């Protein structure tokens, strides 16, 4: 995709470095190319850009100073956590600064009685649950990247995990954030008390992809760790049946703690790597977790087993120990790196669809594999309709990345056509910027632009991401129509 930086920003490198040196100690500022290199992309490595400088502030005062400096100079700022994002959200701006929150890595307070933790944005997701564990508590959203990704990144992306259906996304588990605006003003948003007065700005901030402000503190809710959890692993000889089984579980009034699906190419990639014990003959497997008291789990597992049998599962296994449960999940959580082992490169998509359209979507993806000449493995947060097709390609082969990109775009646009969304948890970033023009019409995009302006009038925070310009949508629309391959003609366009 062409993301050539807009010409609206022109920064003088030397002046910028001089100004930043006034507010940051030397060890908090990187300006040499070799030092900047590690920051040129996030987890979506296909898109790269070198920034002019990387700032690594150590306290909020420095964040404020860096932002004020950039604001005065009209320099773009891209906040960055661990850089595990999968939509290029933290990809630098060629005329801008990367503001890394990596050194904000302290848990400020953990209150077991009130069940909350106040953390800095550079704290890793898993570190919060580890700190809470001695109190029998944990932080519920558990992205597969949880050993590395930060709370700041989680807030910016509204990240989810395999337990979202029952325990919610980041937006359901964050009570308060402290945010610095591009002008260097500090806002307290939300509170430890419920229903903070005024507009629900917390909802607006969470998932805003670093476009509205820089998060310097996060208060999260902690929840009691269930006494027991068990997983049922069900095999299906047909992906359609597996999809229908998901709907049957919900129809039976069960909201499992986790409900995940993997197709045959995904299990085939994972099994040699993790030895999770997956059924390699199955066309698809479902992992369905139940948690709670031992009595509750026994009751739910019995009901789930019955439903899955009726839905045509060809084999069922219930985890018999915590070690086995963790092994079943380890395979799912390692799905991305496992696929990474069998292909030089992979491209992870993130559309959501109504659960009932799953079989249709998978059939369409199979056709797209032929059309684009690339293979695809599917892992799926089935419980909440969130697909992660992993398109395999080789960046060293000319044209393959472009084909992978076109394949991905087609999946996203089909997600919208099926009544879903282009992104369930990875964000729009730079990657899905064109598909925003498909999911939304001009009036909504304009509303997003006005919201952005209410926070950041000059558009300096993460420019070019998340919300496309009118110009970009017009171009994308023209391109599509021009090539005569208007994909889903029933869709309203531009």
């Amino acid at each position, binding site marked *: 995709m062409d993301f050539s930086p807009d010409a609206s920003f022109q920064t003088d490198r030397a002046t910028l470095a001089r100004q930043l040196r006034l507010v940051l100690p030397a060890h908090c500022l990187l300006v040499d190319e070799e030092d900047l290199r590690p920051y040129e992309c996030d987890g979506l490595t296909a898109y790269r850009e070198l920034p002019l400088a990387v700032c690594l502030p150590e306290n909020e005062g420095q964040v404020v100073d860096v932002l004020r400096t950039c604001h005065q100079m009209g320099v773009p700022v891209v906040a960055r956590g661990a850089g595990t994002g999968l939509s290029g959200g933290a990809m630098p701006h060629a005329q801008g600064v990367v503001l890394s929150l990596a050194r904000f890595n302290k848990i400020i307070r953990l209150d077991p009685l009130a069940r909350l933790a106040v953390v800095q944005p550079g704290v890793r997701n898993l570190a919060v649950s580890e700190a809470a564990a001695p109190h029998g508590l944990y932080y519920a959203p558990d992205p597969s990247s949880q050993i590395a990704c930060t709370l700041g990144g989680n807030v910016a992306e509204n990240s989810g995990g395999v337990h979202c259906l029952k325990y919610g996304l980041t937006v359901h588990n964050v009570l308060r954030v402290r945010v610095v605006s591009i002008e260097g003003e500090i*806002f307290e948003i939300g509170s430890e008390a419920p229903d903070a007065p005024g507009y629900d*700005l917390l*909802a*607006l901030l969470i998932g805003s992809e670093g476009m509205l402000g820089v998060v310097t503190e996060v208060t999260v809710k902690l929840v009691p760790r269930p006494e027991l959890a068990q997983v049922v692993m069900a095999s299906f000889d047909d992906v359609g049946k597996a999809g229908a089984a998901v709907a049957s579980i919900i129809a039976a009034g069960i909201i499992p703690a986790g409900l995940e699906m993997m197709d045959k190419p995904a299990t085939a990639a994972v099994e040699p790597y993790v030895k999770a014990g997956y059924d390699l003959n199955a066309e698809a497997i479902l992992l369905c977790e139940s948690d709670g*008291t031992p009595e*509750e789990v026994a009751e739910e597992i019995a009901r789930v087993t019955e439903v899955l049998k009726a839905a045509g599962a060809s084999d069922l296994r219930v985890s018999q120990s915590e070690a086995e449960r963790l092994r079943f999940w380890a395979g799912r959580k390692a799905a991305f790196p496992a696929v990474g082992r069998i292909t030089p490169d992979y491209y992870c998509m993130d559309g959501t669809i109504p659960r009932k359209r799953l079989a249709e979507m998978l059939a369409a993806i199979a056709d797209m594999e032929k059309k684009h000449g690339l293979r695809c493995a599917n892992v799926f947060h089935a419980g909440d309709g969130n697909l992660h097709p992993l398109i395999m390609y080789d960046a060293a082969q000319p044209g393959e990345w472009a084909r992978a990109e076109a394949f991905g775009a087609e999946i996203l646009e089909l997600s919208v056509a099926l009544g879903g969304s282009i992104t369930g948890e990875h964000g*729009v970033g730079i990657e899905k910027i064109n598909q925003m023009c498909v999911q939304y019409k001009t009036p909504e995009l304009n*509303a997003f632009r006005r919201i952005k302006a*209410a926070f950041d009038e000059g558009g300096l925070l993460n420019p070019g991401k998340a919300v496309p310009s009118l110009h970009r949508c017009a171009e994308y629309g023209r391109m599509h129509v021009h090539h005569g391959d208007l994909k889903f003609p029933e869709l309203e366009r531009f």
Partner: protein
Amino acid sequence: MKLDDLVAAIRAAHGSHTPLRIRGGGSKDFYGGMLAGEVLDVAGYRGIVAYEPTELYLTARCGTPLAEIEATLAECGQRLAFEPPGFFGATLGGCVAAGLSGPGRQQAGAVRDFVLGVKLVDGTGQVLDFGGQVMKNVAGYDVSRLLAGSLGTLGVLAEVTLKVLPKPVAERTLVFGLDAAEAVARLNQWGGRPLPISASFWHDGQLWLRLSGAGAAVEAACSELGGRPASVDADNFWHAVREQRHPAYAGGVLWRLAVPTATPVLPLAGLRAIEWGGALRWYGEEAETARAAAAAAGGHATLYRAPESLRCRVDAFAPLSPALLALHRRLKKSFDPLGILNPGRLYAEF
């Protein structure tokens, strides 16, 4: 009533700079700032548009009575887990705009946690669609949730999609004789343990605790927690709490204090009730010190119900910092540039 009628009414008001007072069932006329403007009655824009039990969502027009929605969900064994008060004739639009949740808030979450999408008519008469019907959607800013609790000041919620959930299989209510301080302490201790507590209500020396979930889990928790089973019909009891028909909510003046759950009993007179595991506390006196006390505890106080003489002197909601107020104004302006929608209903300043 059609969407076009709503749009035309707002366009006309926009054209003539006429302030509008958006009204659904009118059940929450008492809530928020003073009412002002020409009534825009949206109760006629009603009806359930889509309901798919296995996709866990329901979409309805703003004027649809909550009672109708609840009845439809009940037929499929589902419900609105945040248990919004229905009062007399509350509509879906008013429920989401007011952002009030009931006893289920403690465990299941607030109204905003269940909003998946909205169709909005902004202050210029433009129709905007945000979110959708799927559980996860992070494309664009989350405007749908922003609208929950905005009291109609950003637009008319023409249509709302909510996440719905199955009813719990089993439910039991226990009663404990405890003073307020003990109740707060217990609720917080229990809250840290994996118990299926779904609601709590303390009033006048008695703590009511509702357990919901799988039959076995509820039974096990009951025998572990002690207390005594409720002697009255528990469903009726929780319904009275949800609808605020319990005597604890009676009287002319009612302050609603939201505080961090573990906050000790505040040095304020007139404590009427405690809900949400300690996070929600109701006071009945003309406690004008309530606002300062709540703020000192890290929370905020709402003048929930009061006679007009008091409402015109005291703002309904806790004041915002100057920086936040300025941000609110900019957001308000971006949806309603002329400020014609429910002026003053949230804050006197806009």
